[in-house]
């Protein structure tokens, strides 16, 4: 504690002298200005040093948990509900007396669903807040952007919802409780080929890590099954006009269109434009567009859409309690129940891990690799040797404005 303060003050003085010297060398006139500035700088530095001292003392009675989620932008559609689920779990743990008599203290960072801001958020949590554990990121892009930082600093990162296949290999300290899209894409293409009995598929996907991961898996597996990809179109995250992509898809006359948006707004717009173009093919998507609040608000536009999401029993005791609490606190149905349940479980697993092994990332890492048949809100949770969960999928369909199961037997991921 004393050490860091001294270091901080040293850097401040160094900056101070640098500025003074620069001023004297360059121009006599500016000496006064430089002096004034440096006084302010010094004042700010000592203030900062004091601040950090206070902060350390204040938080001695708690374990810091970093949380990375998109809190603004389109990604906030799932970032905010997941943040809320984490908050519910942390409040519950703290209300029961915390862990080892200490409270869990969440530190939220807005990672904005992209690698750049994910990296910055991780950087801040690791080097400023000195956290040993981060829950997040929520999107694949921000998780992949953050993983080089967390790996290098041996900070545990556990995502409730990042599904890109690339995350499996993102590092030893990277975990998740959402299944990899390596399986989701296979489930979607199997369903399209076998159950829907389609042979000509088109894909429209967003240019992001998450969507491209799904696109690749779907396309490879559909071709392997004996189908044909007749059109494969992408769009950039900023685009709002997809008419020419849609025109290209229409010209290719597919039986099924696999749609992979990164976030609901673009997906709804895309489906709207597909409908306006008069395309009648069956639409299949991943999980983003079958968020329950999304379907409630846009039921008409999304009617008939088939979505694939991780299998999740909303009536399990822990899940039901969480969802009821969410509804009570926010007055809306939980939009992404599976991911929210995952986020909730991470907090409880962390609390248990810290209680047993202490607030140490190496020990917590080993704790997470050993998670097997944990009875969580997501259901039975087992973590494999890559830090991925072993989970099942369910195929859902929007019917009369609500999400209902489209298929009786869920696919096994492994």
């Amino acid at each position, binding site marked *: 504690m004393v050490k860091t303060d001294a270091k901080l003050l040293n850097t401040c003085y160094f900056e101070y002298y640098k500025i003074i010297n620069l001023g004297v060398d360059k121009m006599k006139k500016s000496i006064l200005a430089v002096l004034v500035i440096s006084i302010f700088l010094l004042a700010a530095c000592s203030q900062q040093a004091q601040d950090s001292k206070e902060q350390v003392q204040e938080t001695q009675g708690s374990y810091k948990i970093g949380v990375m989620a998109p809190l*603004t*932008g*389109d990604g*906030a*559609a799932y970032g905010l509900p997941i943040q809320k689920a984490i908050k519910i779990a942390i409040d519950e743990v703290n209300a029961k007396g915390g862990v080892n008599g200490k409270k869990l203290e969440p530190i939220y960072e807005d990672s904005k669903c992209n690698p750049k801001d994910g990296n910055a958020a991780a950087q801040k949590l690791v080097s400023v807040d000195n956290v040993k554990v981060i829950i997040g990121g929520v999107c694949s892009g921000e998780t992949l952007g953050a993983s080089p930082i967390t790996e290098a600093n041996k900070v545990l990162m556990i995502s409730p919802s990042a599904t890109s296949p690339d995350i499996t290999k993102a590092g030893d300290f990277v975990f998740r409780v959402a299944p990899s899209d390596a399986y989701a894409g296979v489930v979607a293409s199997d369903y399209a080929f076998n159950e829907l009995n389609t042979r000509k598929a088109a894909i429209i996907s967003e*240019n992001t890590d998450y969507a491209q991961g799904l696109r690749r898996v779907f396309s490879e597996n559909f071709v392997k099954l004996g189908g044909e990809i007749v059109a494969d*179109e*992408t*769009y*950039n995250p*900023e*685009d*709002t*006009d997809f*008419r*020419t*992509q849609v*025109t*290209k898809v229409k*010209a*290719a006359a597919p039986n099924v269109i696999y749609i992979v948006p990164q976030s*609901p*707004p673009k997906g*709804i*717009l895309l489906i*709207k434009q597909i*409908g*306006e*173009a*008069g395309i009648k093919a069956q639409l299949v998507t991943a999980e983003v567009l079958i968020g329950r609040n999304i379907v409630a*608000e*846009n039921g008409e*536009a999304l009617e008939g859409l088939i979505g694939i999401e991780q299998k999740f029993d909303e009536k399990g005791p822990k899940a039901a309690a969480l969802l009821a609490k969410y509804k009570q606190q926010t007055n809306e149905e939980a939009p992404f129940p599976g991911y929210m349940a995952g986020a909730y479980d991470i907090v409880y697993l962390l609390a248990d891990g810290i209680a047993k092994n202490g607030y140490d990332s190496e020990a917590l890492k080993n704790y997470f690799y050993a998670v097997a048949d944990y009875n969580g809100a997501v259901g039975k949770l087992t973590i494999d040797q890559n830090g991925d969960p072993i989970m099942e999928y369910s195929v859902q369909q929007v019917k009369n404005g609500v999400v209902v199961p489209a298929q009786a037997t869920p696919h096994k991921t492994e």
Partner: protein
Amino acid sequence: MPFTDILPQLLVNGLIAGAIYALAASGFSLVYYVLKFQYFSQGAIMTIGAYSFFAFFTFLKIGYVAAGILSIIISILAALTINWLVYRPLRKRKATPVILLIASIVLLIFSSSFILSLFGSSAKTIPFANKAYDFGIFTITLLQIWIIASSIILFFVLWFVLKFTRLGKAMRAIADNKDVAQIVGINPEKIYTFTFIIASVLGAVAGVLLGLEQNLYPRMGVLIIVKGFISAVVGGITSVPGSIIGGLTIGIVENIGIWFLPSGYKDVISFTILLVFLLFRPQGIFGKRLRDDS
């Protein structure tokens, strides 16, 4: 399907996109013409217009027409407030166009954050019974016909106002030489106010149509004004009707371009056009070559 069969649909797609760009470009270009600075806050006015239409229409449940008129009034008030609070004090201090440009970008970013805090980040849809017409060689919706029609109508209205009305003459006089115009008795501040009012009407109409067509989200103005700016440059930034032609050109070239290129390259196409114009025809299609002193 061969290219010739799909060409009508691509042209229609391009016209729709282009008409939206044109609507964004026209107000931007008008302010540039009279006040000589890059008015990126037009994107903010469009967002405000779209969101106030949404608020009046879905919360107060008044009809399309009433909501439209109210949102135009809100947009005008917003623009005049911005002018009064920011641009006028800056003009009084003889701020350079670069300062005004920075102020306009700041206002644009501020507005999108302001809308975010008021309405939240999720996209809003305005319920609108949109009919699609299938003409065999292409399909188009009622709203899209409206969008194209309003950009064409605005083209002629703007051209007429600038060319034949007293206000238009005064605007052109200020644009041409502010000092001489003042000598003959034109009050520039008054003309500036009228310019902002007309630009805001254009902005509100653009915002509402865009919101109906592409949903509403806080950053809509930021994204569309960039394309509006490119359109204005290509059409000729000193020619207000030219900016509308510029918008249609960009829209059509983009949409035909991505038939041949992967669709992710759409923005590359429009920015390449911008670069080519800046290098070889900086005055745009319709603009007059600017002298150094202007």
